[in-house]
């Protein structure tokens, strides 16, 4: 059922004319994805997804949608001039996925039925600050660069 919500939300994202409708559908997809992360016994990633993705990035998108004047865009056509090539490429990609998933059907064993663990956050924190410390610092540097880049790109006069 959750995957049904995600797929319907995904189809709504790419087909709605009004970008605000697409943003709301994307928020639905992100929340359903957080629920699926909970099903996969990953509560920390689910929390990060809700706070960061659905609560931060989508708010940023909605701000920009409000800033950019969409009244003209509502009267234009929805799909761009290369939509046929896009559909062909996506069908090729879909065929590739179907070929991979039907031919390699025995590769992935079933889920290990483990007990419900209560220390997922502790494990993530141990790994994040221990083994992946370098990547953590690099990610913070990346965010700094992104902030500077976004401010410079959106300025009126540099």
């Amino acid at each position, binding site marked *: 059922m959750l*995957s049904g919500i*995600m*797929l319907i939300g*995904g*189809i709504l*994202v*790419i087909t709605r004319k009004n*970008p605000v409708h*697409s*943003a709301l559908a*994307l928020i639905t*997809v*992100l929340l359903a*994805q957080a629920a*699926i*992360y909970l*099903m*996969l*016994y*990953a509560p*920390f*990633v689910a929390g990060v997804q809700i706070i*960061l*993705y659905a609560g931060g*990035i989508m708010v*940023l*998108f909605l701000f*920009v*949608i409000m*800033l*950019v004047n969409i009244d*003209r*865009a509502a009267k*234009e056509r*929805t799909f*761009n001039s*290369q939509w046929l*090539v*896009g*559909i062909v490429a*996506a069908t090729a*990609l*879909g065929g590739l*996925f179907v070929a991979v*998933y039907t031919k390699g*059907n025995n590769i*992935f*064993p*079933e*889920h*290990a039925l483990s007990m419900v663990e209560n220390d997922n956050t502790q494990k*993530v924190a141990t*790994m994040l600050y221990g083994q992946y410390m370098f990547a953590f610092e690099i*990610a913070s540097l*990346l*965010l700094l660069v*992104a902030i500077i*880049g*976004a401010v410079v*790109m959106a300025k009126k006069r540099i």
Partner: protein
Amino acid sequence: MEPMLHITTLHYLVLGAALFLLGVIGVLTRRNVVIVLMSIELILNAVNLNLVAFSRLWGGVHGQIFAIFVITDAAAEAAVGLGILIAFFRNKETVNIDEVHLLKW
């Protein structure tokens, strides 16, 4: 009651592939630049789903940490992409992606 369909890793991977496909269709087909950026977020979410599904399969939290880094990277890229979008809109007064043809041969 007979037991329901057992949800294996393959189901999560197929769902991730379907989301990826929808995101690719959105990137290649839509005219509005904002919706193209949102489809890119959809693609990144599909990748995250794959990562977390495999992290569940093999035990350990490596996949989840990678997913956290992907979410961080998606935030940075969304910010910069939207900054570029605002600069583009200030010059051209439109969010039509067909208008981006100055480098076209």
